[in-house]
């Protein structure tokens, strides 16, 4: 985070005001333009398909160890028991391993959808789920363009399961467990800016090994998880029809219209009411 003095004061003032007013409605948002999100760069050309990331993820989040076999062409999905999966895609360039988990969008649809801020984009970058706030409405699942949040349908106290980029470890100064466990150096943790620079460098230095695209740089308004691939991304299970602008943008227009309706409609109704009242009275008087 690059703070200059003015921004620092601004932040302090805003934070102070926020605390004073209470962290609810109308509290001014701190300037977020110079916060740098952290993320992970996944280079599928380096992935060996060893699934060390899957195992360490399960262990780290107290989920059952994945036992199903990895077969070429058989696509496994993340689930309420598995936050991260490796699949073996059969592509035009042969078999390619690709890891899937939450993309940690810059402007996550799930967090915009959440009416309790249970889904929450932390300032460090990970999108986390907070059980003490969640009411289990599953609107995040409806909204997420990547279909990431998974719900425990068979529990009386169900949780939403999804990758949280090992937020606890990041706060403790460590890197996500999968990135640490990866023997092939396929996962690189860093700030998003550094990762994009690194990805561009790799494409520039080895143009034959990569398609000239960083998946996640633009899609859905930019994501924290970035992908490099040797094959076009639609061949390795990405929906390339997703829009490049952010998803919360789609409902912004509606939400912006709400205050104006609230301000304009009641006086209009009251006006019509008054107008028709006079008319009725006039009629009455004429009748009398």
């Amino acid at each position: 985070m690059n703070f200059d003095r003015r921004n620092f004061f601004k932040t302090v003032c805003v934070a102070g005001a926020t605390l004073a007013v209470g962290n609810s409605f109308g509290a001014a948002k701190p300037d977020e333009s110079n916060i740098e999100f952290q993320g992970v760069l996944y280079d599928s050309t380096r992935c060996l398909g060893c699934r060390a990331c899957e195992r360490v993820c399960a262990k780290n989040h107290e989920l059952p160890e994945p036992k199903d076999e990895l077969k070429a062409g058989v696509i496994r999905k993340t689930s309420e028991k598995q936050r991260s999966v490796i699949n073996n895609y059969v592509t035009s360039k042969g078999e390619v391993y690709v890891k899937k988990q939450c993309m940690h969008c810059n402007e996550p649809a799930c967090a915009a959808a959440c009416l309790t801020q249970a889904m929450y984009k932390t300032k460090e970058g990970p999108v986390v789920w907070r059980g003490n706030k969640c009411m289990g409405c599953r609107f995040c699942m409806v909204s997420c363009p990547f279909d990431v949040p998974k719900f425990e349908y068979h529990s009386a106290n169900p949780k939403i399961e999804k990758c949280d980029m090992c937020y606890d470890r990041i706060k403790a100064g460590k890197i996500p467990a999968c990135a640490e466990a990866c023997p092939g150096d396929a996962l690189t943790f860093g700030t998003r800016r550094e990762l994009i620079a690194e990805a561009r460098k790799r494409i520039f230095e080895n143009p034959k090994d990569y398609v000239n695209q960083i998946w996640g740089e633009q899609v859905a308004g930019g994501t924290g998880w970035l992908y490099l691939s040797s094959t076009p991304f639609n061949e390795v299970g990405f929906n390339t029809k997703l829009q490049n602008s952010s998803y919360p943008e789609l409902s912004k227009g509606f939400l912006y219209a709400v205050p104006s309706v609230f301000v304009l409609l009641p006086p209009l109704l009251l006006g019509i009411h008054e107008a028709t009242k006079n008319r009725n009275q006039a009629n009455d008087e004429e009748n009398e």
Partner: protein
Amino acid sequence: MNKQAQTLAKDNDGGSIFKFILSELRPKGRILTPFNIIAIPIILLGIVLIVIRFINGIGSITNLSQDTPWGLWIGFDVVTGVAFAGGAYVLTFMVYILKMEKYRSIVRVTVLNGFLAYLFYAGALLLDLGRPWNVINPIIGNSFGTSSVLFLVAWHFLLYMIAELIEFSPAIAEWLGTRRARKILSGLTMGAVIFGITLSTLHQSGLGALFLMAKDKIHPLWYSEFIPIMFLVSSIFAGLSMVIFEGSISHKVFFDQISEKNHKAQSGILQGLAKICAGAMFAYFFLQLLVFIHSKNWDLINTPMGYWFLFEMIGFVLVPMLLYLYSYRTRNILLIRLAAILTMVGIILNRLNVSVIGFKWDAPVHYYPSWMEIVVTLTVIFTEILIFRWIINRMPVLRDSPAWVEEEH
């Protein structure tokens, strides 16, 4: 017995209300009516299923999956049910704001219907919530998700229920015979009406706006940035068709409650509503047509989903619209009722197409509701009807207000 109690309560001006309510709680009339024989076993079964759901999780009685997080309970109970409850805001607008006095006699029953619909269908939402004990979070303010359309909808449900309760409260005061309370409460009506119409405009459209972020999941024939406007416009004729449908049944079932004057007025009311429905449906059909032409989805029409789209738009929007128009011209009450039923089927189709059928229409495994989801939905509907009947039989909703109300005017 009841008449006695009523006079007693009236004389004491609220003095023996407690006794009176106790006597009113007892069921009136025959227990073994055909409706009860069907409804009560289903309700009991539904309660058992709800208990199972809270012990073993939502997946134990529903077919919901990671691909289909919202099923019948949201798509039908909430999204469709609220559209049908739209009659209350349209009628209060017509009667209190535009002073269309012709419709005054059906305002109370419509508001009651709207209130119960919100109470039960929004209540059904609790069954669908995985962690319902946190439902208070968006209300008490420790975690306002102000960027969420659902946050807006939740607040509006709550506030609108209060507004409708205020609009209906004079009937409760008349039932209890509390004159002072009635005077105060009826003074609040106009404020509640204006507030209620504003809230309805926003949350009827808000229910559509819920699906705006699911752009890549909903079939393009049903998804457009105009879903909120579509939902708002269609809620007008959805609500009024429900008023026609419910009014036609109430007139038969609660025949003895309705004064002769109101009986005679009914056909005029239905014709008026038919005309308004036809107008609103024309606007809606035209909007759909515009959106369709602008979205350039011609190639999608010649697919199974395209036929389904035409089936909905022609069979259940255009046809009932023409039917409304024709029956209004020919004053054919039977055809008006038929048009109302077709329109309601169309609304169910439309809301389910957006929220369930067209949602992930291309997924390999398709969602369909389990029989247990359907039983729970029926439980909600039947319980609502039972409460509705209980109120109609006691409070001056369909029948005229007690004489002392007139005296005070």
